[in-house]
């Protein structure tokens, strides 16, 4: 189980040790996918690796420490009807998120996705899209 979140910390609330601290305290694994630092805020896209209950607890702690948390639903969309199963994305994916089925069709497992955008940028028929931002 994993949950994608966008976490916004106002710069004054944020220190580099903040997230590791919360992880240690809660015992929940959190993968940082992308961090964007601006003068006023720090925006972290990450993945909470836990069941719903634990994930909600993790989010509560984040909020207590001053964060605004936005839960992301599916931020990647794969349209199997558009896909021609050319396979281009399969070898460009840095993880095992994209694999071939037995019948040579292509399967996406967004739990494995690290949002590198290789598939989105390269799919020749635009069968994959990013819904975030």
């Amino acid at each position, binding site marked *: 189980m994993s949950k994608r979140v966008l976490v916004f910390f106002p710069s004054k609330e944020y220190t580099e040790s903040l997230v590791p601290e919360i992880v240690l305290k809660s015992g929940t694994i959190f993968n940082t996918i992308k961090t964007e630092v601006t003068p006023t805020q720090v925006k972290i896209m990450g993945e909470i690796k836990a069941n719903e209950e634990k994930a909600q607890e993790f989010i509560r702690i984040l909020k207590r420490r001053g964060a605004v948390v936005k839960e992301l639903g599916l931020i990647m969309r794969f349209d199997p009807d558009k896909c*021609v*199963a*050319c*396979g*281009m*994305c*399969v*070898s*460009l*994916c840095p993880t095992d998120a994209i694999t*071939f089925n037995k*019948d*040579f*069709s*292509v399967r996406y497992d967004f739990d494995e996705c690290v949002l590198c955008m*290789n598939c989105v*940028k*390269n799919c*020749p*028929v*635009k069968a994959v899209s990013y819904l975030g931002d």
Partner: protein
Amino acid sequence: MPDIRSIDDINKRIRSGEVVVATALEMKEIVAEKGAERAAKEVDVVTTGTFGMTTSSGAFLNFGHSDPQIKMGGGEVLLNDVPAYAGLSSVDTYIGATQLSKVHKLEYGGAHVIEDLVSGKSINLKAYGSATQCHPIKEIGGEFTIGDLNQAIMVNPRSFYQRYNAATNSSDAPICTYLGTLLPNFGNVSYFSAGSISPLYNDPTFETIGIGTRIFLAGGIGYVIGEGTLHNPKAMCGSLMVKGDLKKMKQRYLRGATIANYGTTLFIGAGVPIPVLNSTIAKNCGVRDDDIKVNIYDYHIPTRVKPLVKKTTYKELRSGKVVIGDRTVKASGLSSMKMAVEVIEKLKGMIEEGEFFLTKPVERITMESMMRPMKLVYVKASDVMSAPVTCSADDSLKDVERLMLEKKTGYFVVIDKQRHVQGVLTSWDIAKSIVTNGTKVKDVMTSQNIKTSRKDEPVEVSMRKLEQYRLRGLPVVDDEGKVLGVVRMQDLKHKVK
């Protein structure tokens, strides 16, 4: 091998519903299990196919005459802002897959226009002609669909291309090629072709596929009309030219595509039936992925001849993982196996249902190869260079100043005893010596990052360097780096003309 059946026999069996059709995938198993002789007895037709990027593709369209008439030929034709060929008669055009939209560039090209036509979407036409007495209209515009056209005929000069190279990238930056993005440091391997189910691997000597062969083309019926461009059957790189009625095609088998940062192209699903006339033909259809050799080349070098990274087979490529050195690299083929299998199954069904009959070619496809690199006559740097005025790094500036007046030049190539370029010296460098108190050439010459021209480099390239680096001249060197002459902007300007 003597023939055990004719195409007429096969068509009779199609009519009576007795025909036995195997897809290329099934036939490989039958041949492996029972041998070519038995396979030939049991199977009448093998269906082969591909679903891949067919870059040399496009369609002829005829709009019918307007009233009053317009002469598009010689003018300009735009379909959804994609330029189409205007070198035909007044209302004919050809839309090619790779032509890019003037507005959307890589996002939309001729391939997308063709897909939109096939799916019945309305297309915007803008045409500009030259007004003549019989064709007084200068400009025409409006919307049309494929149904409004008199003819829409796909003609692809290169289809079913048998073998492509596989590509990888050794450099430390990603590169964008016609095989898609190649990740740095051998990050992936990319290749084309449906391998052993693709038509020309099953009939490599063109025993049955010839001019007039009826094929499945993008959901409709098509015909082979000759060998394709770059046809090189002796090197297992055959290709076919095909045509078909665009009006009968289906979007499922025809899709416009964009290769990131490269261009547009058309995915086409196409199938060729192979009549099993004898056991040799059956044996050929038994070809397997591990029989087909493919070379993986390093595409970070933009020259035509690229370094070979590995010799492999379709079997390894198709496994999705290729071993390069001590690493395992992901490989993907830009030709859809899923859709290619759908094509061969669909064609099998059409033949079994009596919807598709086989034809006997009216002429064989040549086995002669026609594939040479482009030959161009161009002006080389060595054609326009002038004799170099040289000096050595240890010469005194006084001597060079004398030489400067004598030879009436302000540009010197500084060379060593073997005539290798060590630097350049200009009158400006000499002028600077007054301030810096230099006395020798080496005190004031430019010796870092010396730009040179190779002797067979096109002058356009030399000219670009001169402009880009704001240089007065470029030493022209041979393969060993020895100076042969100098190209200067002023020489280029009048000599090139």
